[in-house]
């Protein structure tokens, strides 16, 4: 039981650090989508989406919150926490709901697209609240077009990551499906604990 928890924490840690590095790398890049200032590729969204499918809802929530909190540390702007957390959590919520209720029907690409759109719209709304200017919502169509491109790209990347990562990494110590497919994993788990 203790090993299971440690394994989970380690996985969350690895995913969070990948997300943080992606987030940081992205901030070093010149703005790619020039027509919509402030719109980003959302490379960290690859991690959120992959984690949502391979680690589950709770772990992904932790990853998103920690990533947004930590990424605000190196931006030195007090508002960027609100900005980053708002967009991140809204996108997480939409993607989690779509994955839960519509997933085998709609593809990962479409889920990513919906997440990107939510992320950019919510961030524009937060920005407009921060500067107290409602006219800023006129930027939403530009933001939406940017997230259309970014969301497609991120969705395809996430799709192929999920396809290519070995599933055994995630089925081992999986907390769900305890009755069904757990016999094999349990045997590994028990053998492992006997050796210690």
């Amino acid at each position, binding site marked *: 039981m203790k090993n299971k928890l440690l394994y989970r924490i380690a996985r969350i840690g690895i995913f969070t650090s990948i997300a943080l590095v992606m987030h940081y790398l992205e901030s070093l890049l010149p703005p790619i989508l020039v027509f919509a*200032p402030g719109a980003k590729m959302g490379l960290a969204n690859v991690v959120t989406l992959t984690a949502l499918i391979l680690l589950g809802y709770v772990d992904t929530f932790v990853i998103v919150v920690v990533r947004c909190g930590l990424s605000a540390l190196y931006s030195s702007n007090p508002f960027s926490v609100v900005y980053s957390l708002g967009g991140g959590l809204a996108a997480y919520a939409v993607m989690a709901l779509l994955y839960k209720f519509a997933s085998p029907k709609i593809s990962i*690409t479409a889920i990513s697209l919906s997440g990107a759109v939510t992320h950019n719209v919510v961030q524009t709304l937060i920005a407009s609240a921060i500067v107290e200017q409602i006219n800023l919502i006129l930027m939403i169509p530009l933001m939406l077009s940017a997230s259309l491109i970014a969301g497609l790209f991120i969705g395809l990347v996430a799709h192929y990551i999920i396809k290519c990562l070995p599933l055994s990494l995630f089925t081992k110590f999986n907390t769900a499906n305890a009755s069904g497919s757990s016999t094999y994993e349990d045997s590994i788990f028990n053998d492992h604990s006997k050796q210690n």
Partner: protein
Amino acid sequence: MGINIEKVKKIRESKPFSLWDLAVFITIITAIVILFVFSFSSQKEGTKVVVYVENEFYGEYSLKENTQEPIPVYNKDGKFLLNMHIKDGVVWVTDATSPRRLCELSRISKAPQQIIDLPNRVFIEIVGESDIDYISG
């Protein structure tokens, strides 16, 4: 808690796009088109440039003036934030002190377009004729 392995296996076997994605694509593209039409139809000739710093009114400039020298914008503590240029009815920003300097990408010429420097909380907006009439009348 945990993951749904059956679902993951299905996803791994599926293609990157499915037929149902069309519903998502069509919704988003329709929204983009409607919002673009709406925002373009609300555009009109501007007359003035209004600048807000940290949610407070900073200054008002005529869009017709051609600035030889850039207009510097400071915050309340006197910290330099950015230089604003107005030339031939076009407004843009240089020398911003925000980390990524995204605000330097925008060029605006019509009301109610805007330039925003979020880290410095500078908001620059072009205001049209009718808005001013409305305020003064």
